[in-house]
């Protein structure tokens, strides 16, 4: 496609939302406080609901409005609430920072962002090479979703604390929802909802992991788990 040709306003808006979601993913790489990470996750989840509304208005798919509302209720309200309660219960220990936070980076934020750019580029251009085109699939938003998947993997890798890894996993789900929205926005509502509830399973698993990690070693760092290697 000729880059000097602008896409339509709706497609442009969808692409901008996808790009901002990717930027938030990078913000998570930099952010060192668990509560700020949760705040960023809320912003990202709110954006995906906005995107659902934009697509619903553009393609005339009324059931996407329901999906947007459901996704907002779950990801903007419920999941952050649960995460906050889980982290609130793990009280900070004397002489240590608040739970699940600063110091868990294995790379400096600037290097993490540069590594993230490389990851994003790989995801981006690999998906671009697949040439998935069609009236319902803006190639750009799809490629941005692929970049987000890889960057959220990167986030889970460079962080040592369970809280950041959980947030990384939840944003991975956001990335996949983004891809699903742009590729298969006409998917029946019941299926979309089923995928959404997969997230709840993840929340339960990570909740158990956070509590187990904290109960065993009084820390959320997974670095303590390396000693368990056989």
């Amino acid at each position: 496609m000729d880059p000097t040709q602008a896409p339509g306003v709706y497609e442009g808006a969808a692409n901008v939302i996808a790009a901002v979601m990717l930027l938030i993913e990078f913000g998570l790489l930099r952010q060192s406080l668990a509560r700020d990470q949760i705040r960023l996750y809320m912003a990202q989840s709110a954006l995906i609901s906005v995107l659902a509304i934009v697509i619903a208005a553009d393609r005339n798919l009324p059931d996407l409005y329901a999906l947007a509302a459901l996704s907002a209720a779950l990801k903007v309200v419920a999941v952050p609430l649960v995460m906050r309660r889980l982290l609130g219960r793990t009280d900070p220990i004397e002489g240590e920072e608040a739970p699940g936070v600063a110091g868990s980076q294995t790379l400096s934020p600037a290097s993490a962002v540069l590594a993230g750019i490389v990851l994003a580029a790989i995801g981006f251009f690999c998906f671009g090479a697949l040439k998935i085109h069609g009236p319902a699939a803006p190639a750009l938003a799809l490629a941005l979703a692929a970049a987000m998947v890889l960057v959220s993997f990167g986030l889970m890798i460079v962080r040592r604390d369970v809280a950041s890894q959980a947030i990384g996993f939840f944003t991975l789900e956001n990335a996949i929802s983004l891809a699903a929205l742009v590729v298969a926005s006409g998917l029946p509502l019941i299926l979309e909802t089923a995928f959404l509830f997969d997230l709840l399973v993840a929340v339960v698993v990570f909740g158990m992991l956070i509590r187990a990690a904290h109960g065993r070693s009084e820390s959320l760092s997974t670095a303590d788990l390396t000693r368990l290697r056989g």
Partner: protein
Amino acid sequence: MSAALPIPLIQLLQVLTVAVGAPGVTGVIAKVEARLQGRRGPRIPQPYYDLAKLFRKEALAPEGASWFFLAAPLVAVAAYLTIPLLIPVLTTYGLPLGYMGDILGGGFLLSLASFVVATAALETGSPYAQLGSSRAKTFSAITEPVVLFVVFTVALLTGTDLPYALAATVRSSAGQIIRPAHLLAAAALFMVILHETGRIPVETHTGTNEFGMIEEARSFEHSGPYLALLKWASELKQLILFTILADVFLAPWGLASTQRLDAVILAIVALLAKACAVGCVVAVIDDSFAKLRLFKITEYVSAAFLIAVLGVFTLYLGGG
């Protein structure tokens, strides 16, 4: 009433608008900033009074400083006064000298000006001036890639690297405004502008603590008219960068499309209003964030770099 102005006069007006308006924009920003902090703040024309006072004072140069020390402020101001010829300040159509240089040409002039000021600071032997110039060069070296990627985005969007072409592209349709490449490039440019004008995430604009200074420290040893020229130069730089942001990227409306007198006057007013609007945003940022530690500035710049790179990426798959 609305007679057609000759083209050379409009070209001269572009330079004059920037030259005369720049201290005023600084005054407005200082006023807004003070009001946001609950202070009354200086009068808006205060920067003009400052310049007038400094121009009347005696000039001193440190012992051992060569002619370069005194020539640098003149070169810097000359460079900054050349840039308004290259960018759309008042008109939508390119003026004859407007094609003398592209965006990179403007970038070269900006770096020439900052290079001579930094070198003059090295001449003085004063540790704070040298520290400021060394820091300024270090950080401008890492913001350079960001600017380059912004230029790449412009080049991909328009097929040229002329500021006039991008402004025309942005004006052409709503789809051009909302596309991610354009918004990301504008955001990255804005972050670079905050860095280049010495605003808060990078540097305290009004601080008196030498250890936190970057750009501000470079003019420590200049005095009298030379200091006035340097102050004026930094105000010019600020207005030029705001003009590039507003007239090329964000809001290239209100420019004169004809040579009529009323259109040109309207364009002058619109330009100053847009610059003050950008200045208000800058003042709000100034008042709501803390200055970054010196070694955290790389993180700020890496964020700007990320945004600029994403802007270029999005163009490669089309639809960006």
